[in-house]
C-alpha cells in the first residue's frame, strides 16, 4: 500500500471503488514546537488565499466550482508531539461527470504547495495581515466551546505548554513578530525539509497513479527527514486540582490522566478497550452510573489519545455536584483497576469497537488519517488487524493497563451563573 518514492517522500494508495469521489493529499510532518506552532497554523491559511495562477480567493473558489465543486482542505492535525500540515483536494470521479479531472487536480495541488502568491521571498502582506487576524480570533475563540476549552486547559496543565500540551492554533503573542519573509522562510523549510506523505484515496487507473508518482511525488526534492517521535505520558506524581471560575450556567469537569502505554504495544489495545468499558459507550460504567443512575450529567465520557497515551474524562454538571460527580467517577475508575468488570461489558465493548473500526473503511478521510498515524508510529497494521487485536484482549490485560493509569490534573470550570440565558 505504501511505496517509498525517494528519501523522505512516501506514497500511499487507498483503493476503494465504492465512493463517488477521489481524494489526493499531501502531508508535511513537523514537530509541534513553541517556536513554530503559530507559523504552522498560519501557513496553510495564507497559502490558501492565492497562488501565482489564481491570485485571489475568488479566483480559486470559482475554479474549484468549475471542477465540479472540488473541495480544498488545508490545515494542521496534531499527532502527539508532532503535527501534520496538510493539503487535500476531493473531487468527483470521472464516471459521474464524463470527464477526467485527476490531471487538473494534481496540477492544482502543486500550485498550492509550490507556487503560493509571493513577492519574491515574502508572502503577500495583505493576505498575511488578514490571516493573522483570523488566527487571533480562532485562538481566542477556544473559549466559545466550553467543553473543548476545559479539555484543552486540562491538557495544557498536564504538559506545561510544550509539544502536545500546546494549543495547535498557536499563540497570540507570536503573531506581531511574524512577517511575510519569516513565514516564507518557514514555508521553505517545510517544503524542502519535512517528511512528506502523499495519499491517494478512491479509484484510480494505473496511468493516473503513475502521474501522481511522477508529477506530484516527483516534484519534491529528496530529503533526510523522519517522523516526530512522541514521548508517552507516564508517572503523574501528585494529582493537581485546578478551579477556574467563569460566568456560565453549566460547570464542566475534566480529568486528565497519564496512561503510560506505548501506542503500538499489545497493552494499547487493552487500554482502548478498557476505556470503552469505562466511558466510551452508552452502556459504559460512566454513562450508566454518572448519567443514568445518579442523573448528574447529560454527557460523561472517557477517551484515550493514542500518541501521548493520555486519557480525558469529561462531563457537564451542576456547580454544587462537583464532589458527587468526581466521587462517582473515581468509584468507577477504581472498579476498572480492581477488575470489577463483567464479562458481558467486555464482550459488548468488543462488538461496539469492532463496528466502529469496520466503519472507518466507509470514509476516505478517516482511513487516510488512520494510515498516516500508523506510518508515524512505524506500524504497518491495517484496520482488520486492529479489530483482531481488540478481539484478543483479556480482562486481566485491561486491569493491567488501568493499573498504570494515574490521574494528573482535575480541572474544574466553575460556572457562577445560576439561571439560564435569554435576550436582553
Amino acid at each position, binding site marked *: 500500500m505504501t511505496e517509498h518514492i525517494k528519501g523522505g517522500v512516501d506514497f500511499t494508495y487507498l483503493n476503494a471503488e465504492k465512493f463517488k469521489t477521489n481524494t489526493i493529499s499531501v502531508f508535511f510532518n513537523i514537530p509541534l514546537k513553541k517556536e513554530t506552532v503559530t507559523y504552522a497554523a498560519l501557513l496553510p491559511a495564507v497559502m490558501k488565499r492565492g497562488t501565482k495562477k489564481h491570485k485571489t480567493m475568488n479566483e480559486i*473558489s470559482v475554479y474549484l466550482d468549475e471542477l465540479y*465543486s472540488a473541495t480544498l482542505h488545508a490545515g494542521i492535525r496534531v499527532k502527539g508531539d508532532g503535527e501534520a500540515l496538510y493539503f487535500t483536494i476531493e473531487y468527483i470521479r470521472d464516471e459521474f461527470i464524463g470527464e477526467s479531472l485527476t490531471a487538473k487536480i494534481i496540477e492544482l495541488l502543486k500550485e498550492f504547495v509550490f507556487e503560493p502568491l509571493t513577492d519574491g521571498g515574502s508572502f503577500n502582506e*495583505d493576505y498575511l495581515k488578514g490571516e493573522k487576524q483570523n488566527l487571533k480570533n480562532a485562538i481566542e475563540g477556544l473559549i466559545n466551546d466550553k467543553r473543548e476549552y476545559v479539555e484543552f486547559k486540562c491538557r495544557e496543565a498536564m504538559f506545561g505548554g510544550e509539544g502536545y500540551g500546546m494549543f495547535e492554533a498557536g499563540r497570540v503573542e507570536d503573531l506581531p513578530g511574524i512577517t511575510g519573509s519569516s513565514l516564507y522562510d518557514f514555508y521553505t523549510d517545510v517544503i524542502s525539509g519535512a517528511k512528506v506523505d502523499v495519499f491517494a484515496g478512491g479509484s484510480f487507473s494505473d496511468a493516473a497513479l503513475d502521474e501522481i508518482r511522477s508529477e506530484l511525488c516527483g516534484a519534491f526534492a529528496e530529503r533526510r527527514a523522519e517522523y516526530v517521535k512522541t514521548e508517552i505520558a507516564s508517572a503523574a506524581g501528585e494529582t493537581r486540582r485546578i478551579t477556574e471560575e467563569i*460566568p456560565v450556567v453549566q460547570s464542566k469537569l475534566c480529568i486528565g490522566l497519564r496512561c503510560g502505554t506505548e501506542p503500538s504495544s499489545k497493552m494499547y489495545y487493552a487500554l482502548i478497550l478498557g476505556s470503552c468499558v469505562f466511558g466510551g459507550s452508552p452502556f459504559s460504567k460512566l454513562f450508566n452510573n454518572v448519567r*443514568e443512575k445518579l442523573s448528574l*450529567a*447529560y454527557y460523561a465520557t472517557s477517551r484515550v489519545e493514542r500518541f501521548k497515551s493520555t486519557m480525558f474524562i469529561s462531563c457537564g454538571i451542576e456547580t454544587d455536584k462537583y464532589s458527587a460527580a468526581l466521587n462517582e467517577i473515581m468509584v468507577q475508575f477504581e472498579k476498572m483497576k480492581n477488575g470489577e468488570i463483567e464479562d458481558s461489558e467486555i464482550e459488548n465493548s468488543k*462488538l461496539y469497537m469492532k463496528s466502529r473500526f469496520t*466503519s472507518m473503511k466507509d470514509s*476516505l478521510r478517516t482511513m487516510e488519517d488512520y494510515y498516516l498515524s500508523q506510518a508515524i508510529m512505524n506500524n504497518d497494521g491495517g484496520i482488520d488487524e486492529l479489530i483482531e487485536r481488540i478481539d484478543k484482549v483479556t480482562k486481566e490485560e485491561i486491569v493491567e493497563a488501568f493499573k498504570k493509569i494515574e490521574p494528573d490534573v482535575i480541572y474544574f470550570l466553575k460556572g457562577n451563573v445560576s439561571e439560564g440565558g435569554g435576550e436582553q
Partner: protein
Amino acid sequence: MSGVQRFYSDVLMEEMLFATHSSGLRVYVFPKKGFSKYYAIYGTDYGSTDREFIVPGETEKTVVPDGIAHFLEHKMFEQPDGSNAFDSFALTGASSNAFTSFDLTAYLFTCTDRFYENLDILVDFVNSPYFTDENVGKEMGIIGQEIKMYDDDPTWRVFFNTLTALFHNNPVKIDIAGTVESIAKIDKDILYKCYNTFYNPGNMILVLVGDVDIDEVMRRLDKRMADVKNLGEVNRPGYYEPSERVREFSEQKMVVSQPMFNIGFKDITPFTGGEELARREVCTDIILDVLFGKSSKLYTELYDEGLIDSSFSAETELEKRYGFSLIGGESKDPLAVYERIKSRISQAQRDGIDKEDISRTKKVMKAAAIKMFNYIEGMGNSYIRMLLKGINPLEYNKVVDSVTYDDIMERLGSHFDVDNCVLSTVMPADAGEAV
C-alpha cells in the same frame, strides 16, 4: 414481493426502493453495496413545534408543555423490563442514538453486522413505550443538564434569538428541549397521550441505507407491527402568524471571544410540500450561494476587509410548517455586515443576477447531491427529511435543472424582504456580566 416501487437514476447510479407496509408505515431503502456500514432511521412526523393537536377520537384541542417531544425521545429508550434499548444494542455491537428537531423525532442505529436483528430491536423499542412516575422524574436531572449545556452555547443562543425575533406565534421559536420550568410540568400521562397520537405507523417513516433486502424488511415488520394501530394523519390546528417580524434587533451577552451574528429572513409564502417546496428550496439556495457563497464577490470583499471569516455561511430551512433563511458567522462588526447584506439584496432585486453565476451554482449543487451518496448516515439524515416533505432524493438534480431565471427572481423578491429581516447578535461579555 409486490408493492415495492423501484426508482433508479442513471446519472447517480443509485437506486431507491419504496413500499408501504400493511400497518401504514412507509419504508424506503437505499441499497449501498460495498459499504461496511448499515444505517436505519425510524422517524415520526412529530417535533418540538407540535405543541397543540387533537388526539384521535377527541374533539378538544390538547396543549402540551414545551420540550415534551424531546423528553419523550429520551424516555423511549427505557424498556418495561427495567433495561434500556442501549443494552439491547450492546449485545449486537450497533451504535444507537436519537434526536428531536422542530418537526421530526428520529431513532437510529448504525452497525456493520446483524442488521436485521438490530432492525427488530429498533422497531420494538420505539413501538413499546414505558413511562413511570419514577423514570420520568429521573430524566428531569439529565435533560436539565442538557438544557444548561445549550444555554451556554453561543451558536445555539444566537440562532434561537433569531427565531424569536422573526416569529410571533409559530412554535418554531420555542427551544426544542423546552426549559427547566416547562419540563417540570411533564408527567407520564401526558407522555402517553403524545406517544399515542404521533407514534402511529401512518405518521411514521423508516429509511434504511446499506446492503438491505426490502422483502426481508417487510417480512420482519409483518411480525412486529401486527398489533400496532394506524391512526392515520394527525390533526394539527393552525395558528395565525403575521407576516411582519417581531423586532429587528436582538442582542445577548455571553462569554465569547468576538461577536457572533445571524441575519434571518422569514418565509411568508403559504405552506406546501413536494415538488413545489423543492423548487422553492432550490431557488433560495441558488440565491444564497450566488450572492453570499464563497465564490461571490461580496464574500471576497467582506473577507478582505476583515468583516467576516471562514465561519460565514448562508442556509435555508424550508419545511412543511415553517421556513426561514439564515446568514451568519463571526464578525467584529455585525451591523456593518448586516447593512452590506441588505444592500446586496436590494441591488440584485433591482439589477438582476448574473446568469453565469446561476449556472455555476447549479453545477455545484448537483455535485453536492452526487457527493452525498458517499455518506451512509448523511444519506439517511438528509433523505428522511426530504421524503417527509414529499421530495424524491434521486430526482433532486432534475429540480435544480428545471428552475428558471424568473423563478429565482420571483423568490428573491418575495422571500428576501430587507425591511422585514432581523439581526441577532451574541456580544462578548466583560467578566461577571454574562447573561
